[in-house]
């Protein structure tokens, strides 16, 4: 390729991909300010010029007539995500630390096999788990409760936490552990005082992945909670009926994805600092 043409090619490709990526958001944004007339008239894009914007859609998602209230689902989603992520991070880092530092040998099972066992849980399709979970939670009286959903979500997130943290701990020199022990720390203190404080980058990456997969889960919430506890994705999908109140749906969708979109800005900052590279190998 000619050196002169290369920049033109490069920026064209970037721009095209950017349009594709941004398209759905643009459409949702513009649609969220429409009303029935504007939608029925065919596809339009520019407010004021092509249609008269209204805030109906946005009013509807905050308890307006004919709409829903997204606040409670939002809170439910947040609680489940935060609780499940926290549990997964704690249990995950402990297990990852053990797998990174100590040698396990139970019969033919070695460390790498245990790590594989954790990570392999990601292969389990939710649909395989959901029926047994249903009966399990029913038996425990946790069906349609936040606690039940948290337990199930931990199964989704724990493998991620272990996967990220094992790699991260492997990157911390063992001499630090040894030094802490020589300095008088027992194993648990060694972990808490010498290793954890140096693991912030790894923990943040793990937390980010947990947040993304926790917040965006739909299937478990859909089948294991019904009326009492509705998560945000559930609430949005419920709006997607045959005659779509597109403006309400769009507003709800944007509201639902907004928190994690903000996360992207922060992930990029992390990426530029090179902190992700250690965790992604």
């Amino acid at each position, binding site marked *: 390729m000619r050196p002169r043409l290369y920049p033109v090619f490069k920026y064209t490709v970037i721009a095209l991909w950017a349009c594709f990526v941004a398209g759905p958001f643009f459409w949702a944004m513009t649609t969220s300010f429409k009303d029935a007339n504007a939608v029925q008239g065919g596809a339009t894009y520019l407010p004021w010029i092509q249609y008269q914007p209204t805030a109906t859609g946005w009013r509807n998602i905050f308890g307006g007539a004919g709409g829903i209230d997204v606040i409670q689902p939002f809170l439910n989603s947040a609680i489940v995500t935060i609780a499940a992520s926290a549990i997964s991070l704690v249990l995950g880092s402990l297990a990852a630390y053990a797998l990174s530092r100590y040698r396990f040998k139970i019969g033919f099972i070695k460390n790498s096999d245990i790590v594989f066992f954790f990570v392999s849980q990601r292969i389990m399709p939710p649909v395989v788990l959901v029926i047994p979970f249903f009966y399990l939670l029913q038996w425990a009286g946790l069906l349609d409760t936040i606690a039940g959903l948290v337990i199930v979500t931990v199964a989704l997130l724990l493998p991620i936490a272990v996967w990220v943290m094992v790699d991260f701990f492997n990157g911390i020199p063992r001499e630090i552990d*040894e*030094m802490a022990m020589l300095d008088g720390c027992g194993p648990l203190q060694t972990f808490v005082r010498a290793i954890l404080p140096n693991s912030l980058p790894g923990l943040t990456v793990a937390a980010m992945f947990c947040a993304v997969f926790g917040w965006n889960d739909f299937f478990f919430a859909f089948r294991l909670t019904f009326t009492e506890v509705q998560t945000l994705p559930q609430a949005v999908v419920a709006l997607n009926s045959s005659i779509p109140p597109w403006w309400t749906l769009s507003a709800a969708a944007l509201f639902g994805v907004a928190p994690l979109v903000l996360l992207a800005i922060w992930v990029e900052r992390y990426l530029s600092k090179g902190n992700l590279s250690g965790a992604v190998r």
Partner: protein
Amino acid sequence: MTLSATDLSLTVDGVDHLKSVTATFEPGRLHTVIGRTMAGKTTLLRALAGLQEVDSGSLTRDGADLMRTPVWRRDTAMVYQQFINYPHLSVFGNVAFPLRRQGLSRDEIQRRVSKSLALVGLTGFERRKPSQLSGGQQQRVAVARALARGTGILLLDEPLANLDYKLREQLRDEFKTLFSDQGDTIVVYTTTEPAEAMMLGDVVLVMHEGRILQVGPPQEVFERPATTTVASIINDPPMNIFPGRIEGGQVTVAGFQATHVSAHLAQLPDGAYQFGLRATDVSLASAGVEGAVTFVEISGSETFVHAAVGKTPFVIQIEGIHDVALGDLVKLRLRPERLYAFDEKGSLVRTPSYDLVSVGGR
């Protein structure tokens, strides 16, 4: 307060890391363990610290079994080759870390940290993070942390190996004063450098392939190396070791009449020997055995000329720095009165005498 290792052995994947290592480490003395890379020095230190399990053998302190004491109750401090510090703590935090674990009062911690940072010359650096320090300073922090605790056992694993020559020279000098002042502490210090071992050690232990080959005061180990291997390890460049014969008052090497037999070898029967001669005791002269220069290197203020006599390699150490061209033919003069004689298996038979003017001043 004596630390005794008895019959320590460790084999990993068929390689002996420790082979029946028996040694006693006395309080108030600095023990240097010298050996080449992979000789088992680090493994020995780690075993003493409790960081490395061994296959067999025992470890006692004042007769009490130490094997079942976990690392964190061993009263041992260690300084690593790779400047290991806690990356998240400041210099102060690093040195204070073990003191906090001991539950000392704030004032006491403050006092001890200041004292030990002053010892290593890092006063004023308290708030820096280790990553903001140079390699030499990082190693000083590690040493300060080890000293601050006042442990009974202090282990240093090639602490200067990763530093520049000049810094190494400087810290070596500092260490000499620093460690001579440690009261009843048992200090064990590993190194690959003979000069470091000689200079710092009260006792030198020579290790090779997992075994301890010789133990003794530096002077004795240097002047009376028990085997050719020790002779080669305790000298830098390694002592020239070459097979030869004593025949009719002459020492022959590779068929050449290299030199006459000097008085200290006169009693030996004719026959095959291995001879040892330090690089300092071979010189370039106008007459002597002929060799070809294969390589010239410069270390410190000395020039090491590597030359091959037939197939036998020799190293010649010349004071000062000189240009010698590769491939030149040179004549080597071997100083007969400096020859060590070893038997064919490598055990010491005769040493040259060092007519010491005096050993005062130490």
